[in-house]
């Protein structure tokens, strides 16, 4: 399992993460920011434990993020 973290308050709503990893990200219709699916909110840092299968797409999402708020760990 790997861990994905999204520091959501800094999101500028560019949609790149959703384009690269649609299984894990959606865009909120309410505030326009990214939502990390099946995650828990730890003081503004949204954390999800996911299968290694998602690694390639999540790395693309993380690398594309213009505000560098997507972290992947536990590889």
């Amino acid at each position: 399992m790997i861990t994905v973290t999204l520091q959501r308050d800094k999101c500028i709503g560019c949609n790149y993460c959703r384009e690269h990893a649609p299984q894990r990200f959606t865009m909120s219709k309410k505030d326009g920011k990214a939502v990390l699916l099946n995650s828990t909110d730890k003081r503004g840092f949204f954390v999800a434990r996911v299968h290694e299968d998602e690694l390639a797409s999540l790395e693309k999402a993380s690398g594309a993020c213009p505000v560098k708020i997507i972290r992947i760990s536990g590889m």
Partner: protein
Amino acid sequence: MAPAGGFDSLMAAIQGGADSVYFGIDQLNMRARATMNFTIEDLPEISRICKAHGIRSYITLNTIIYDHDLPRARAIVNAAKEHGISAVIASDQAVISYAHSVGVEVHISTQLNVTNFETVRFYSLFADTIVLSRELSLVQVKKITDAIRAEQVKGPSGRLVEIEIFVHGALCMAVSGKCYLSLHTQNSSANRGACVQNCRRKYKVTDQEDGHEFAIENEYIMSAKDLCTVDFLDDVLESGVAVLKIEGRGKGPEYVKTVTQCYREAADAYFAGTYTKESAAEWKYRLENVYNRGFWSGYYLGQKLGEWNDTAGSKARRRKIYLGKGSNYFDKIGVAEFLIESYSLQKGDQILITGPTTGVIETVVKELHTSDGPVERAGKGEFCSIKTDEPVRRNDKLYKLVAAEK
């Protein structure tokens, strides 16, 4: 029209004498990266403050809009309508048409680069005010405003379309915002308000054959100087523009107050017939005290090429040093108490106090008290009191103004 990056700048704009302010709501505006953007929850308060002071309020919603942004853009327009915000500044047709359809006044952003009269006529179907491209000359601006009057081009409100131009603040190396540098290097799009300002850095030229590197003599080859028009504001106003716009939602409240004040005084002087080149020189001197990258006249006087910077950051004559924050205010005697958190405060220091309700206060420390009574100096960790003419609030920021090193 003054920029409001936060409540402190909003109050500073009002103190400076602005007729209107513009601001962004977290995303979908050209300063999406700025940390101090308002949120949608702030709208009722912004609207209340603006109405109480009799000024107009405009939301910037002027980035490129993608399909996934549409619900958010509509929500912001709806909220603007609900809370009585005066207008939406837009560049994307999706925003223009939606705002128009729900009866929210539309202003056309400079991001649309309106450069001719026929485009003005086209957008007058939707918009009452049009911000022209920053790359026009005043002769071209005057042609457009003359044509609006001659052909009686009216906006949805039934009034003649108003023309607005930028008169002060940062300029782009590219045609206003239409730049790929930031997206290319950081994946962070300037056209989505997330510019990382690559143009403000130093660059080298590398010989690809042998790897030799050459620093460029003017090291900031892409960093444009700031626009300043105060010394030819008479020509600007004679071009027939109705609104003078000041750039700077990312800048401090003291910048907003000083710049707004200078242009307010200059415009008032022009209409009173007392505007002179000598008074303009004085306003320019005051403008040099706050954040600037050096001034030039932009493209308004018909220069062929941009003027570029030779230093990093601001050339302001003064800089501010953070000292501490407000801890109390004694109404009856007009005395503010501050906790000094860094450096020290001395008698005779020129100080700056900023806060979300206070706006901007600039004064000189004539007397200084601590628990030891009257003192010459208050150091880190000490509480001290100073007389101020206007009230100060808890957590207002206290700065010392010092001459900037050359």
